[in-house]
């Protein structure tokens, strides 16, 4: 039990710190890397809860796919950090005050709150988390599961709607023209003056 608690605090400490670092560091690439660290540590927390599948999926999907894309975008965009930071110091005191007040309220209330139902018993070692999740997803939760699928479909449609445009200036390959090209189309013999 002690080991578990230690491991939990170790990972949650890193999680909180990296999340904080993510929103405070100046360099967007560093911020993205801190976010990856946050994902890894929360994946570790899932593992601690014996939810192996969720932990692995979190790392695979977020770190493997989402964050790599994100890093690409961050590196390609020319973001003027100094300009974005303008006004940061001006709003900082107010933000800190409001944030501290809210955090204090939340701590006071949530420490008094009794989360008695939220406890789960440990499962035997051969218990398959993935299998159970699959069973639940395709029986009890099939309706929300399907809606989630529709949401992903809409996300695809929306992304394509917003980005795909047939512009006259866009360059694209025309394979049939490339194949049927003749020598006379490309090569021009020129008479040069002999020196």
């Amino acid at each position, binding site marked *: 039990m002690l080991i578990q608690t230690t491991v939990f605090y170790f990972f949650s400490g890193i999680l909180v710190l990296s999340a904080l670092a993510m929103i405070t560091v100046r360099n967007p690439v560093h911020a993205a890397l801190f976010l990856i660290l946050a994902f890894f540590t929360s994946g570790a927390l899932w593992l601690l809860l014996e939810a192996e599948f969720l932990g692995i999926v979190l790392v695979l999907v977020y770190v493997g796919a989402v964050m790599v894309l994100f890093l690409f975008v961050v590196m390609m965009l020319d973001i003027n950090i100094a300009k974005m930071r303008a006004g940061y110091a001006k709003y900082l005191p107010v933000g800190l005050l409001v944030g501290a007040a809210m955090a204090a309220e*939340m701590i006071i*209330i*949530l420490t*008094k*709150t*009794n*989360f008695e*139902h*939220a406890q789960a018993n440990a499962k035997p070692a051969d218990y398959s988390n993935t299998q159970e999740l699959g069973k639940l997803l395709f029986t*009890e*939760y*099939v*309706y*929300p599961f399907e*809606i*989630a699928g*529709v*949401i992903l*479909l*809409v*996300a695809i*449609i*929306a992304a394509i*709607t*917003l980005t795909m*445009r047939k512009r006259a200036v866009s360059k694209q390959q025309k394979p049939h023209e490339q194949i049927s090209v003749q020598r006379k189309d490309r090569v021009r013999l020129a008479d040069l003056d002999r020196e």
Partner: protein
Amino acid sequence: MDSLDINSIDSLPGLLTMLAKSLVVMPEIALLIAASTILMVSLFSGRKSDLFTYILSLATLLGMVLLILPSINKPDVVLFGEMYVNDELAKLIKLLVCVTVAVIFIYARPYLLNRSNSRPEFYILGLFATLGMLVMASAQNFITIYLGLELLSLCLYALVAYLRDSNDAAEAAIKYFVLGAIASGMLLYGMSIMYGITGTLSLSEISIYLVNVNDLNIGLIFALTFIVVGVAFKFGAVPFHMWVPDVYQGAPTAVTLFIATAPKFAAFVMAIRLLSYGMQELVADWQQMLMILAVLSLILGNIIAIAQSHIKRMLAYSTISHIGFVLLGFLSGENFGYASALFYTVIYVLMAAGAFGVLLLLNKDDDTDVDNLSELKGLGQSHPRLAFIMLLIMFSMAGMPLTVGFYAKLYVLQSLVYNDFIWLAILAVIMSIIGAFYYLRVIKLMYFDDLLQNLGTQNSLLANTVISVNGLLIVGLFIYPNYLLNYCVNVFQ
């Protein structure tokens, strides 16, 4: 509704019967199939694809209405462990949403065509948004409520940015997206705390828990606060209204029409499910929260609307004040209050659809939107019919007799007086009188000012017919409000 016979699916006819039966049980399935089919059809139908999409979408919505109508006054359908509940309230909301979206498509098409921007995506995203609203209407579980809400919101974000070359639209879309995401986060946070305390996501189980629990946990109120904040964001109630004016102004008018109408039904049903069906026991707590929201919305909406010179912005602040009225009806926490709030929502959507419909049917020479109030000057001379419809709508929004807006306000005030919220009723009346100023100013501009510039109109027979019916309904429902009111009362029995 008889249950599905699983044994009969060993043959194709058996499969088809089961499909047909499940369509009746869950109209959402029909809409999903239709929307996906239309998506594929529009992809492969070439140059005329947007016309095909438009016609098929209208046919789908008509089909949905025909599918839902027979199920009214039939026993409730409860599926998936109460995640899906098709009761009378859900059926009414679904019916209203489908009709409203069809009207939106009809108004929007000539406008989009005029800007050579009628692309199939508008209708397809609209249909998926409709699906999201239907899911919300039947959701009796935190998960389904949230997923339905996300499905709806995602379509709306994309629709706001529909005009890709417009900077205003892009700005509005970003604002809407960021604030919407924050609101969803708030809602989810409240739901997760509620789950932590009660151990369930099902609203009916939560209500049972709340009845049986002895000492109310302060964490419950904490969770409730976040849920109310999420709901208020989606309604656009003050102080969570910041996105409303910017999004209304920045989005293309056709999309503003969409945002201003159908999603209000979804927000209403979400509030009813969460607050009434799930947490009726906490009524004393959410009543006070809603009271603050309602009072602020009424005051701020009506007063700031006076200062607006942009029509869509003015209508946005007017929406905020109407939302204040809906919340006033809602906060009494008993059935007549809910019914009056539902009645008000229906009438509000009728009026908003008409108001934006008139704007969509007007057309400037350079094909830009009719934006400024001054552009309506002399509309009574140039377009007497549209101006008259606008006049009816403005009268109705101000709550004048001879239009149904009068009854909508009256019933809300009645429910307030029944429940001893006299001061709220008085405040609501005072604010309505202040609000009458900017509604009457539109009428003054249209009828008493000289013609400034000649506006054209869209010559779409269908849209013009529908807008006339829309205007007539505002008067017609004043003469016969009882049918609609009784219906609204019945769904809460």
